[in-house]
């Protein structure tokens, strides 16, 4: 029988590029953070080593679903943790390689509305027949931690380093008042903005508030 350390080593060797974190949260309990695109490969590896799936938990943190695939090996629990952004809302199903995942995934879909691609039998399993379509009792609204009145301020701070933008109309007003039209503030200097972005990423503030760099704003309105 393989020990937990051996299993983790195998996962690291085979899927190291997809693994972003490993934690031993207490004796015989491990959490491995893995990209969602590698979840099938990881599950296959574990199944081949006769490691059984206990269950799958789903947590809705407002912006993302956190899925934890709990496996048991020689009285050790190894949980593969992955995140599915709510705007993506789908992940590959394990049901074809692990029949035990079949009902669990259906239950998660009923409660959270998360889709499992490639599931062989995606019927309702836990909600009553009369439950309305498209309503998921444990799914939270798409919301991050920033309260509504502060979202613009937070977005501007992340994008430009200043919550109140230094716009062209500000520059014109400053000119009219005989002030230096463009104060050398960070938002007007590309190099300074880069520095601020780097620091924000280092602190992890962008992830914390749910900032989408491509969109240039928060992932929620």
């Amino acid at each position, binding site marked *: 029988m393989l020990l937990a350390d051996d299993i983790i080593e195998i996962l690291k060797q085979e899927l190291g590029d997809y693994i972003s974190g490993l934690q031993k949260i207490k004796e015989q309990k491990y959490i491995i953070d893995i990209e969602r695109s590698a979840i099938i490969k990881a599950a296959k590896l574990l199944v081949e080593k006769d490691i059984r799936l206990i269950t799958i938990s789903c947590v809705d943190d407002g912006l993302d679903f956190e899925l934890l695939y709990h496996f048991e090996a020689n009285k050790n629990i190894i949980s593969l943790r992955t995140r599915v952004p709510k705007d993506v809302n789908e992940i590959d199903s394990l049901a074809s390689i692990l029949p035990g995942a079949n009902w669990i995934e259906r239950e998660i879909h009923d409660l959270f509305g998360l889709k499992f691609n490639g599931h062989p039998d995606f019927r309702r399993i836990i909600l009553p027949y009369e439950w309305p379509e498209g309503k998921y009792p444990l799914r939270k609204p798409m919301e991050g*931690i*920033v*309260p509504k*009145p*502060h979202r613009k*301020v*937070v977005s501007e*701070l992340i994008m430009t*380093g*200043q*919550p*109140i*933008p*230094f*716009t062209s109309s*500000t520059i014109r*007003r*400053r000119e009219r*008042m*005989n*002030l*230096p039209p463009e*104060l*050398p*503030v*960070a*938002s007007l*200097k590309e*190099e*300074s903005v*880069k*520095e*601020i972005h*780097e*620091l*924000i990423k*280092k*602190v992890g*503030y962008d992830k*914390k*508030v749910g900032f989408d760099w491509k969109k240039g704003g928060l992932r929620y309105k």
Partner: protein
Amino acid sequence: MTEYIVFWGCLISTRFLNIEVASRKVFEELGVKINDVEGFSCCPEPVISKVADWDLWLTLAARNLSIAEEKKQNLMAICNGCYETLHDTELELEHSHELKQKINERLKSIGREYQGTTHVLNFLEVLVNDIGIEEIKKHVKKPLNNLKVAMHYGCHLFTSGDPNNIWKLPRYFDEVVKATGATIVTYGSERLCCGYPLSQYDYNFALKNLTYQKFKMIKESGADCIVVTCPACYYQLDFEQKTVEKMFGEEFGIPVIHLMELLAMAFDFPNVGELLKMHRVKANALLEIIGGSKSE
């Protein structure tokens, strides 16, 4: 000539240009050179950012301090919110070597370092300690003897590294106002917050329980105007005054003046009236009380 790096903050440099104009002229008159430097971001402001993420707040503030440090000059904050952020960051990093090390590891990734050699000053400290009340008095060409003012200190002014000395800056504020010749009238709720920070979370509650209460007491005191040192308080008391009047069906019409504008009036700068025209609550009537200005 004394020199400082100036930190205007986002509100003054984009919205309240009257405060920036007055400040530049007052410091020029008093022989203080203020230098703008490249690359300052938001301080970051202490109402939303500090609560949302203390770590980021401290990191960005330390970056700003590291920029000032490169110039080997002390930093003077005109905005009280910026002062609180930068001053508290200076103290936090001075008191904890581990924290300073952690922040510097982050700053290193952008090629910066904060050593702790720049000292953050509130502009009141510069006025009182570096220039001096007697020197200010020498520049008063039009004493504001007929003007009765209500002091609004604002919460950030009570920021202090020494808990036994929280009245230091408010007392400086009093001294500078007195130096202009204006009379300070008491109204009983000087320390009551203007409502701006709370309004970011519950607008109606803040206006009802703080801003409105303040206006009622100031009106009863018979003050001609409110004097502030904080741009956020200035916004709340000037720009939101009409909203409060509409909300509670009561007229106040109390002009709100920044201390730098009050000094500009006392120094009898030309075109002070132009600055006062930028206020939401009509403030030009104050010039009549003090006997006109050069622009008229």
